[in-house]
């Protein structure tokens, strides 16, 4: 018997969507009440002195000189191999370039960062190129022509991230080589120019992919203690350690809003609407992407502004302070949304990487060999999607709660948090709804 099925659609939920939504809202309410009763002091931030260290041998390896260079060279080699298909391969669906870029790299960075922290910082081939260039010209790689102005904050990364999600979700013919080549050429030039002007610090603040991997990597269970020793840490500490800086809010909101737009743009209503319109699809795509990000940002600003007023903090300070709470939400949504893409298209891309020039001789075998489902079923995927979305929001609630305790005086702490609870509820409902009903 053969029966077809979309992946993780609404019909695959083992429970009705209304039940999933109600459960999600109840989970948020319960965590909010439990936190209010049991968690009365701010506790998060940094790796405590009492944190368990990783085995000494592993810690020594990581802090040794060979470690960083091993991964830098790995990054360079991977980038060079990627360029074979990118520059010399045919513009053909069998070319692994699009799959490598959009699936293995962009989506794959999520689990890698969740497990190991900000991995792209070490792998980033552009950072290594800049480092090698600086060494060659006997310059200090950390010093550019001028210092990085502090007001710049995360803004360059936020702009870069928007540039990427626009490419990924809106750009016409975005899976073809000319489009990917053009985008990557502009990106590489911008990053290297920024690094020449501002030094290697530029990558920390200006590179969209380092920012992306860095944000999600704060949820990793390993981190550095203040003295540089590798420790097991509570991911909540890692996230709470993220300090406010200009542009942080927009950076995290772009990450969340873009995945929501991706769900929306796949809905039949949106497709029909765009095709009916006399305006070109990329124009509507851009408007849609900006609108969804704008709505997510407006909801966030309104809720934190209200929290500000009710919690009796000075206007505006809470907005950036609560931005880290959005990161686990975005991470949950990214996993829910792209998990099957990584699992299935990722498998096929890895096989295709055996033959980047599409010559027909692939040591890894043909591309039509069946994919391994790894025991997943439509229902299990749908269930996992609901779970990670809800857990992301619960973590967001915990982070917001801890921050509220640090920011607000006691009498304002509960009241000040209620708009944030409303915000989390709205984000959860919108997220689940877009994923399963739109």
């Amino acid at each position, binding site marked *: 018997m053969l029966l077809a099925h979309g992946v993780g659609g609404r019909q695959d939920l083992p429970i009705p969507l209304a039940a999933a939504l109600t459960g999600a809202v109840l989970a948020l309410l319960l965590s909010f009440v439990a936190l209010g009763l049991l968690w009365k002091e701010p506790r998060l931030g940094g790796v405590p002195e009492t944190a368990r260290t990783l085995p000494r041998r592993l810690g020594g390896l990581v802090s040794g000189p060979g470690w960083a260079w091993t991964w830098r060279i790995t990054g360079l080699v991977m980038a060079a191999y990627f360029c074979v298909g990118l520059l010399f391969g045919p513009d053909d669906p069998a070319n692994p370039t699009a799959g490598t870029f959009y699936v293995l790299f962009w989506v794959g960075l999520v689990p890698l960062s969740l497990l190991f922290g900000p991995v792209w910082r070490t792998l980033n081939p552009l950072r290594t190129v800049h480092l090698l260039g600086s060494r060659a010209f006997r310059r200090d790689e950390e010093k550019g022509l001028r210092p990085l102005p502090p007001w710049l904050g995360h803004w360059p990364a936020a702009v870069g991230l928007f540039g990427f999600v626009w490419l990924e979700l809106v750009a016409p013919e975005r899976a073809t080589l000319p489009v990917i080549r053009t985008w990557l050429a502009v990106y590489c030039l911008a990053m290297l120019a920024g690094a020449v002007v501002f030094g290697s610090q530029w990558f920390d603040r200006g590179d969209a992919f380092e920012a992306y991997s860095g944000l999600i990597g704060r949820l990793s269970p390993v981190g550095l203690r203040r003295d540089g020793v590798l420790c097991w840490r509570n991911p*909540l500490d890692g996230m709470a350690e993220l300090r406010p800086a200009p542009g942080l809010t927009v950076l995290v909101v772009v990450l969340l809003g873009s995945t929501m737009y991706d769900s929306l743009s796949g809905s039949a209503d949106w497709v029909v609407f765009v095709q009916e319109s006399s305006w070109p699809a990329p124009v509507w795509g851009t408007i849609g992407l900006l609108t969804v990000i704008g709505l997510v940002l407006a909801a966030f600003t309104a809720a934190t502004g209200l929290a500000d007023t009710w919690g009796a903090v000075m206007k505006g300070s809470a907005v950036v302070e609560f931005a880290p709470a959005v990161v686990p939400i975005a991470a949950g949504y990214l996993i829910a949304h792209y998990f099957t893409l990584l699992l299935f298209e990722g498998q096929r891309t890895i096989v295709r990487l055996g033959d980047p020039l599409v010559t027909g001789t692939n040591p890894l075998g043909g591309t039509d060999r069946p994919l391994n489902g790894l025991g*997943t079923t*439509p229902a299990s995927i749908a269930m996992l999607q609901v779970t990670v979305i809800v857990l992301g929001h619960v973590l967001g609630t915990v982070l917001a709660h801890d921050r509220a305790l640090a920011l607000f005086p006691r009498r304002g702490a509960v009241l000040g948090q209620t708009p944030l609870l409303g915000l989390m509820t709205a984000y959860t409902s919108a997220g689940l709804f877009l994923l399963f009903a739109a």
Partner: protein
Amino acid sequence: MVALRRWLGRILTLAALSAPVLAVLPAPPAAAHGQLALSAPAKGGTVKEPLEKVRLYFTEAPAPNAYFAVLTPGGVRVDQAWMPGESRRLDEPVREFNLVDGAWVPTVYDTGFGIDVPVGYWPEKGTYTVRYATVASDNDKVNGEVTFSYAGRTSGPPAGWQALRNEPDTILGAPFGPKAATGAAPSAATAAASSGDGSGSGWKIWILPAVLVLGTGAMIVLAARRPAPGGGGRPGGKRPGRSGDPRLRAAGRTGSKGASAGRRGHR
């Protein structure tokens, strides 16, 4: 607390109100091997100009004996012989599961194989129907309809017009019998999928979610049970910055909690 209760009440009411609204939304259709991936005009769309052709993209190239027809609201065929069109890479691969001998097998499609169905003329306004019937590589029958409305200029048939009268090959089955012609009959796949045949549900699907929930719960409980940093102070004791410049508080809890402020330094 009164305010809190009021808010909780509002949120619960909202949740209760939204539930029935969500429950009646239609389920998205299921897809299969060689299914329709894209169409221009889109399903349910409105066309304001007389188009020369309707273009459909399938996840597999349609069989040579595939059948296509464009019908006016009155049921008159206005299409001419179809031809393969350009293929395009799908912007995002279509992922789907097929149940093969009781096991779910995932498949990813990333090429849209285009076909063009020329339209000779547009005799009236209203709902036009594009019908398609073909056979996928796995011998699964692929058939369905795309309807869209036409609101543009109308015209008579061009000189020498002869409407096609062919019917789907017998090998394609009789997809457009009296019942299917109403356009209301769901495809077999959709019907089976939504009838609760078990899309792979069972106790196993709860394992991974349970592990994740327990892990997250442990993470939160561990953080909640440890002493507050900079602590020693009884709960509700000296809290930093309860008075004074709130911006100072926001800036990293300086003052009596110097220890914790230090720990929160930039990485």
